[in-house]
C-alpha cells in the first residue's frame, strides 16, 4: 500500500498521481496535434515546435510522477517500486526514441530508434504487469491495472507503427502511404495515452478511498 498516512504525504502522493494523469493527457493532445500537421506542407515552425514541446512535457510529467510514486512505497514493496521505475524508464526511453527518429534521417538511425522504442515498450509493459501485484485487488483497481497494461501496449504499438512506417518509406511505400500509417500510429498511441491516464485516475481514486 502507498504510505500516505501523513497529510503532507497525501498531498505529495496526489500531486504525483496528478502528474501522471496530466502528463498522459498532454501526450494524447500532442499526438492529435501531430497527426493534424503530419504530411501537411507550409506548417509554421511555431506549430511544429509547440507539438514537439507538448510531447516532451507530456512524457516527462508521467515519468516524474511514477518515480515519485515508486519512492513513496515502502522498501518491502520491491515489485511495485520496481514496476513504477520500469514504467518511468520505458517512458524516458520512448522520449529518446522519438527524439532520435525525428533527428536522424538515416536508415541505421531509424533502426536504432526502433530498437530503443521496442526495449522501452517491453520495460513499460513489464512495469505495468509488476504493479498488478500491488494494485491487483479489489476488482475495480485490478481493472485500472488492466487499462494501464492495455494503454501502455497501445502507446508503444502506435509509436512502433510510426517508426516502422518511416523505415518502410525508405524501401516500399509512398509518401501518402507513410502519412496515412503515421497518422494511424499517432491515433493508436493517443488512445493508449487516454487509457493510461484513465487507469491512473482509477488507481488513484481507489488508493485514496
Amino acid at each position, binding site marked *: 500500500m502507498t504510505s500516505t498516512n501523513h497529510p503532507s504525504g497525501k498531498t505529495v502522493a496526489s500531486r504525483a498521481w496528478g502528474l501522471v494523469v496530466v502528463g498522459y493527457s498532454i501526450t*494524447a493532445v500532442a499526438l*492529435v496535434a501531430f*497527426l*493534424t500537421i503530419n*504530411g501537411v506542407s507550409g506548417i509554421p515552425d511555431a506549430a511544429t515546435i509547440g507539438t514537439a514541446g507538448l510531447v516532451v512535457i507530456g512524457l516527462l510529467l508521467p515519468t516524474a510522477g511514477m518515480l515519485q510514486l515508486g519512492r513513496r512505497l515502502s522498501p518491502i514493496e520491491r515489485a511495485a517500486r520496481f514496476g513504477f521505475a520500469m514504467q518511468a524508464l520505458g517512458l524516458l526511453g520512448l522520449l529518446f526514441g522519438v527524439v532520435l527518429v525525428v533527428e536522424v534521417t538515416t*536508415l541505421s538511425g531509424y533502426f536504432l530508434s526502433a530498437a530503443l522504442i521496442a526495449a522501452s515498450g517491453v520495460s513499460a509493459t513489464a512495469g505495468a504487469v509488476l504493479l498488478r501485484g500491488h494494485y491487483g485487488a479489489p476488482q*475495480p483497481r485490478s481493472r485500472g491495472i488492466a487499462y494501464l497494461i492495455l494503454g501502455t501496449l497501445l502507446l508503444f504499438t502506435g509509436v512502433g507503427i510510426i517508426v516502422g512506417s518511416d523505415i518502410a*518509406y*525508405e*524501401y*516500399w*511505400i*509512398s*509518401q*501518402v502511404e507513410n*502519412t*496515412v500509417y503515421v*497518422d*494511424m500510429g*499517432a*491515433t493508436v498511441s*493517443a*488512445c493508449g495515452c*487516454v*487509457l493510461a*491516464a*484513465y487507469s491512473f*485516475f*482509477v488507481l488513484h*481514486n481507489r488508493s485514496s478511498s
Partner: protein
Amino acid sequence: MPRVSAVACVVAIILISLYSAITIEGVIASNAPPAVVFSLGTADRDVTYCNSQTMDIYIPSVAVTHPLPLAIYVHGGGLTSGDKADISPIFLNALASAGYAVASVNYHLAPLYKYPAQIEDLKCAIRYFRANAQLYGVNGSEIFAFGTSSGGELVALAALTGPHSQFDIGSYLNESSGLTAAVDMFGPANLTSYASYSDTLRVFGNNQTKLVLASPTHFVTANSPPILIIQGVNDTNVPESQSIQLYGELTAARDQVQLVLVQNMGHMFVQVGPEPLSPNLGQIGQDMVAFFGKYIAGG
C-alpha cells in the same frame, strides 16, 4: 465521479478516432487528383500499357490532319510521387487545339521501383504508341514529349538516349523509343552536382552510380533531338544552374536547343513575389506548340 471519468475516457477515444479518420480521409482525397476535364475531344482514361502502367489519352475532335502528332506528358514528383492527372489543362488544351493527340502517362514510382524503372516505362510508352499508332490514329514518326520537374528529366533522357538504348527493355523492342522533340520543364539535368536532390537513397538505392545514368547531361551527343528547356529563375528546388548546364552542353554539341527563363517563377510554375510569371502559362503553352510545330513534316 468514476463513472463520469469513464465516460470521458470513452468519449475522448471515440473523438480521437473520428478526428483521425477524417484527417486520414483528407490526406487520401488530397492526393488523388480529380480526372482532368477535357472538352476538346475524347478522353480515353486508364489505358494499360507495357508493364501494367496506365495512361490517359486525349484525342482532339478539332484535328484537321490525320494521323495526329502525339505529345506525351510525364508528371513530376521526384520519381516517388505524382500522377498522370497532374497534367496542366492549359498545356493540354493548347496542344489539343493545335491538333495534337496528348497522352499523360503514369510510371513505376520509387522507392518500390528504383531508377531506371521510370525511364524504362517512358521508353516503353513511346514504343507502345509506335506499335499501336494506327489504333490511336497517331503519327508514329511525330512523337513529342514534355514533362515537369523529374518528368522533365525523364523526357530529356528519353530524347537524348535515342531510339534504342540500355533503357529499352520489355515489350515492342522492334520499335524506336526516340522522340521527335522534347520540352524539359525545370527537370534536374546533372544529378551528380545536384546537391539539393533529396531522396537519393529512396530513388537510387545504395548504387549512387545510377545518379550518372539519371543525368541528361551524361547523354548529350551531337544530332540529338531538339529540346526546349523551360526554367523558373526563382526555382530553389531545381536551381537555374541545372537547366543552364544542360543548355550549355547541348549548345556545345551543336544540338538544337532553346532555353526560356521564366521570370518570377519558382518550382512547378509557382509565382514568386508580386509580379506575374513572364512569360505566363498560356504563353509557355503556345511556345511549346510552336516549338513542336517546327519539327512536324510540312509544319
